[in-house]
C-alpha cells in the first residue's frame, strides 16, 4: 500500500522520459541477445553488397576497383545502414501487437519511451552494419586518407542520421496494420531515395531532371559528407545539411509517431 503523501503528477518530466527510454532500450538489447539470428541482415548485407557492387561497377565507373573504393564504400555504407533502419519499423509493428505493450501503456511512464527505446536499441544494428562495411572495404584495399579518427566520426554521423530516419519507418510501423505492409511502404520510400543519389555513380552522367533530384536528395548530402570525412578529413557543408536534416526529421516524425501510437490504444 502506498502511504506517501507525494503529490501525484499528471505529466512525466524530461528526466523521466530519458530514464524510461533507456530502460526500454535495455529491453531491446536483451531481445537482440535472446534472438541473435535477427542480426543476419545487418551482418550479411554489408558484406554481400560491398563485394557485389564494387566488382560490378568498379571497372566501368572508375576504371579499376581500387580507385572506385573511396566512392563506393561511403555510398554502400549509407545505403546499407538506412535499409537496416526499415527493420526498426517492421519490428516495432510486430512488438506492438504483443500483449506486453498493453502493460507499457498502463504504466505511469513517458509515452515516448517504448518507441524511443526501441529506436535507440536499434542503433546497435547500425553500428554493426557500419563496422562491417568499413571492415569489408579495408579487406578489399580501401585506405581512407582522412584516417581512423575521421572514419569514426563519419560512422557516428551515419548512425545518428539512420536513427533519425528510423522515426519515419517507426511512424509507418505505428499506423500500418501488419508488419509486411510496413516493409512494403518503407521499401517504396527507400529505393528511390538510396538509388536516385550519388551513392554508386557521379550524378554528372545522369539526365538533367534526375541529376537535379539526385543533387537535392538528402541521402546524397549524407554520402558526400561521409566521403569528405573519410577521404579528405574535412567536415563541410554537407555534414551540416545532413545533421540539420536529421534534426528536422526527428522534430516532425517523433511527435506524430507518438500521437499515432497513443491513438491506437
Amino acid at each position, binding site marked *: 500500500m502506498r502511504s506517501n503523501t507525494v503529490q501525484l503528477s499528471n505529466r512525466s518530466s524530461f528526466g523521466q522520459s530519458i530514464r524510461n527510454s533507456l530502460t526500454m532500450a535495455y529491453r531491446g538489447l536483451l*531481445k537482440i541477445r535472446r534472438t541473435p539470428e535477427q542480426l543476419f541482415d545487418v551482418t550479411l548485407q554489408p558484406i554481400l553488397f560491398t563485394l557485389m557492387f564494387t566488382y560490378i561497377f568498379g571497372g566501368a565507373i572508375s576504371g579499376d576497383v581500387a580507385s572506385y573504393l573511396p566512392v563506393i564504400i561511403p555510398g554502400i555504407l549509407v545505403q546499407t545502414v538506412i535499409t537496416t533502419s526499415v527493420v526498426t519499423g517492421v519490428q516495432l509493428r510486430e512488438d506492438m501487437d504483443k500483449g506486453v505493450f498493453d502493460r507499457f501503456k498502463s504504466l505511469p511512464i513517458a509515452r515516448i519511451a517504448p518507441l524511443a527505446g526501441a529506436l535507440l536499441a536499434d542503433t546497435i544494428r547500425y553500428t554493426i552494419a557500419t563496422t562491417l562495411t568499413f571492415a569489408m572495404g579495408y579487406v578489399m584495399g580501401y585506405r581512407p586518407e582522412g584516417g581512423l579518427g575521421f572514419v569514426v566520426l563519419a560512422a557516428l554521423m551515419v548512425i545518428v542520421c539512420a536513427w533519425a530516419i528510423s522515426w519515419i519507418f517507426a511512424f509507418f510501423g505505428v499506423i500500418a496494420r501488419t508488419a509486411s505492409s510496413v516493409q512494403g511502404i518503407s521499401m517504396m520510400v527507400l529505393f528511390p531515395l538510396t538509388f536516385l543519389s550519388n551513392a554508386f555513380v557521379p550524378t554528372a552522367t545522369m539526365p538533367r531532371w534526375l541529376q537535379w533530384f539526385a543533387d537535392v536528395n538528402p541521402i546524397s548530402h549524407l554520402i558526400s559528407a561521409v566521403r569528405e570525412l573519410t577521404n579528405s578529413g574535412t567536415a563541410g557543408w554537407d555534414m551540416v545539411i545532413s545533421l540539420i536534416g536529421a534534426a528536422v526529421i526527428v522534430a516532425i516524425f517523433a511527435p506524430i509517431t507518438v500521437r499515432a501510437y497513443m491513438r491506437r490504444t
Partner: protein
Amino acid sequence: MIVDNEWAVEARGLVKVFGDNRAVDGVDLNVRAGSIYGVLGPNGAGKTTTIRMLATLLRPDAGSARIFGHDVTKESQVVRQLIGVTGQYASVDESLSATENLIIFSRLLGLGRAEAKRKAVELLEEFGLMEAAKRPLKNFSGGMRRRLDLAASLIAQPPLIFLDEPTTGLDPRTRAQMWETIRRLVKTGSTVLLTTQYLDEADQLADRIAVIDRGHVVAEGTVDELKASVGTSSLHLRVQQTQDLEAARRIAERVLRVQTSVSSEAAKMTAPLADADLTADLLIALREEGIRLAEVSVQKPTLDEVFLTITGHGVKDETADSAESKELEAAGV
C-alpha cells in the same frame, strides 16, 4: 494518503462503440476501496472493454470514470500510478526471462538497479516462479505466464488492481493458487476488480458482483443477493429400475412439496431444492418404498441459469455474435 477515498472506482454511463457494435453501452460501476468486486458475464459482454477504459488503455466514447477520485481521461497519468493491470492475455515479454521482465517493469516504475533486482527475486519467490527466472518465458506454461503477469502488476503495490479473467484457461490447481493470491492481496489493503465467466469464481472471491450482458449491467449486488435472485440449487436423482421412476416422482413431490421433472430414457428426475434439510426425508421415504437409487447429485445454478433468470435469454444463443464482438474487441485493442 492518496487512497483515503471511499470509492476506488466510480464509473458513470461508460460507452464504447466499435463500428456499429456498442460493446459497452452505459455501464455504471461503484467499487468500494478495500473490496473485491466481480464483473460477471459471457464472452463479448463488454467486460474487457470496460476494464480497458477504466485502466486508461481505451478512451470512452461517452460517460466518465474516476479512480480514487481521479478522472481516467483528464488525469490518466495519475490514474496509471494508482493501478495495476493484468490482462486476459498475459502482458509480459515472452522472449525474455521472468527476472528480466520484472527488472524492466521495476526500472520503468522508478526503482533503482539494485532495488529492482531485489524486488524481482522477492516476487519470483512469492509466486513460485524461480524455475522461470533465467529462461525465456515462451518455454513455460500459460499458468506461469499468468502468475508472472500478476506479479508484474504488484511491483508498485498499486492500491487498485484490475484482473481480466485471471483464471480462464488455467487448470484447477493453478486456479486455486490464483484465488489464494487474490485473497492475500486484499488482506494487504488493495482493491481488486476482476472479471470472470465463472459464477463459482465470483462466488469464491467477490464481495459484490455486477452481471454484465451485451454492454449493460443487468444485475448488481452482493453474492447472496444475486444468488437469491437466481433461485435454488436442484436435486438430481437416477433410479436403478426405470419402472420405479413414477413412484419416486410421487414421493419426491409429496416430501419436498415441489414440482419435479422426469426424463424416462435416463431414468432421471430433477427437483428444485429450496430446503436442503428435506433431502434426508426424501431419501428415507425412497428407501422405505424399496426404490433403489443409481445416482444422487445436487447442482448449483450455473452461469447459464443466472443469465436465463436475469436477462431472460441464455448464454448459448449468443455464441454466434459473441465470437464476433470478441473479434471486434480484439480489433479495437
